[in-house]
């Protein structure tokens, strides 16, 4: 019952109440409007829930269900089977999962550490307000700079015909010293370009929430810097840092465009495999393989999220 609607929902012909300037409404109309007033908001939420159900939930559900189909290569018949699922746990697909996981973990950890360092470096300064604002704005922009343009920017920089490659070859005769952009290592370097800003953006609010009084109180009670971080700062920051790292992991894991533009299929990654499976005209039933692979991705991310929720609960019992 909202304040403004008191006269509508009470259904009695009570006169003006509490300085409500509106005139009292006759009983029957007020009762009808009352029910209508309660129903309207719920109806108003329907579009959102329907939309999400049809365009988000439905595709995932369909994906999960149809992953359990396999096409017989000879008869082109589709049957229920776990064949596709089984297939993705072996061979090239297994390598793809491991490759994606490895890349994502490395990128997430590196991005988190470097991003945290950058956020701390910029935040702690009293005189550097301008620098801080610059870094935050830049991070907001760079975190969205991914995909194709980013890949091409790096190709132009340290690709085979890249500007820096040429520079290093001409001046130092070293070239890139064995480093190739078109490899796992190269991908990591490129991914970090948007992962580090993403980390800065995500962790800055948490860093700012560290009250200076805590540090001062700890100082006052005789704690050294390390003791403060061990007993207070660390435990308070750990959950947001872990959360941010998970976010970086999910971003790296899901990345497709950058990888596609850079490495084609030379690096084992699940996203690339999925695209291949879907566009393959050669293998029969590859569509189902693609679905199985995608389902695997969804489950993996789901597991990561559950793990994150568990970590949150454990480390933030002081909020429970």
């Amino acid at each position: 019952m909202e304040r403004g609607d008191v006269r509508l929902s009470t259904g009695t012909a009570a006169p003006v109440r509490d300085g409500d300037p509106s005139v009292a409404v006759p009983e029957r109309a007020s009762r009808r409007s009352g029910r209508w007033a309660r129903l309207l908001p719920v109806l108003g939420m329907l579009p959102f829930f329907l939309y999400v159900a049809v365009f988000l939930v439905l595709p995932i559900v369909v994906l999960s269900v149809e992953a359990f189909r396999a096409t017989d290569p000879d008869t082109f018949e589709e049957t229920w089977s776990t064949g596709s699922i089984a297939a993705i746990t072996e061979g090239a697909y297994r390598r793809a999962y491991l490759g994606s996981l490895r890349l994502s973990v490395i990128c997430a950890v590196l991005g988190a550490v470097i991003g945290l360092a950058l956020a701390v470096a910029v935040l702690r300064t009293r005189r550097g307000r301008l620098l801080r604002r610059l870094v935050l704005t830049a991070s907001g922009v760079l975190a969205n700079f991914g995909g194709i343009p980013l890949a091409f920017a790096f190709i132009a920089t340290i690709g085979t015909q890249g500007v820096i490659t040429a520079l290093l070859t001409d001046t130092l005769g070293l070239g890139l010293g064995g480093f190739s952009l078109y490899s796992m290592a190269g991908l990591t370097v490129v991914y970090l370009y948007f992962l580090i800003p993403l980390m800065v953006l995500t962790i800055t609010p948490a860093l700012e929430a560290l009250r200076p009084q805590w540090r001062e109180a700890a100082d006052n009670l005789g704690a050294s810097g390390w003791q403060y971080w061990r007993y207070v700062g660390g435990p308070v920051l750990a959950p947001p840092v872990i959360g941010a790292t998970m976010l970086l992991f999910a971003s790296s894991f899901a990345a497709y465009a950058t990888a596609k533009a850079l490495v084609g299929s030379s690096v084992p990654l699940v996203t690339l495999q999925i695209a291949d499976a879907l566009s393959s005209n050669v293998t029969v039933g590859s569509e189902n393989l693609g679905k199985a692979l995608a389902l695997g991705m969804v489950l993996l991310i789901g597991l990561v999220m559950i793990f994150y929720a568990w970590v949150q609960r454990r480390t933030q019992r002081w909020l429970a």
Partner: protein
Amino acid sequence: MTSLTGVAGAGGVAPETPVRPGRRGPGAWRFAVLAVLGLYFIVPIGASVWFTVRDRRNGGVTFGTYAQIPGAEGFADAFTRSLLLAVLTVVLSLLLMVPTVVLVELRLPRLRTAVELLTLMPLVLPPIALVVGVRSVLAWAPDYFLNTPLADAFFALQEPALPWILVLVYVVLALPFVYRALDAGVRGSDLKTLTEAARNLGASWPRVLVSVVLPVLRTSVLNAAFLTLALVLGEFTVAAILGFETFPTWIVRISGSAPKLSVAVSVLSLLITWALLLLISALDRRRGAKENS
């Protein structure tokens, strides 16, 4: 790589660190971190620009590559298509989310967690998995209900000239950012109190919506709009897997035959995205400044 986050806007106050005598170390370390990372972020941009303007033959600078862009094969088509898709996505997202956000804030606060969770899903879910699911659903039309109006609708959605299916999926992808931008605006301005005050002064609900809610949300709406624009203009995965030609897929298509051109176009699209996002940042700061005065 789809865009992942909104621009945080550089508001907020950095905590004051107590001055401690004799701490030189952090200064040098901070400088080192900033210098190294500064290089890391600036060099690729500089190198790309240089890549596109260097004139290897004459040893100077030429903007010829950029001049080629407007006339390049397929550019106008792909770019306008992406632009149109972006605008449609913005409109549909706002139509869907503004009422939702306002309703949750004013009338159904208990649904807030559910809505937040739902809008967080597209952020975590790999777009490629989503598009595989979408493809599977689209495949129902030829497989299961061919020759029905529903199937015709499905086919219409995939019209290459203006694939509405992309708009529908992009709205989902943009959900986290649009929701967050609108929600921040609604919460930051304490919409509940404002509407209650207006109601108390005698305004009817339509009047409240027009005179109170919309003006208050203007900045966040713009915010959400620009974020969505940036997202759609850069989106590759969904368009590529579903087989449509948008701006990013066009860039990849021509990259094989015209590398310099593709880098030039990338730089251009980067500049456009940056401009959009800097606009958001400026909007945020203006809103922040207004609230502080």
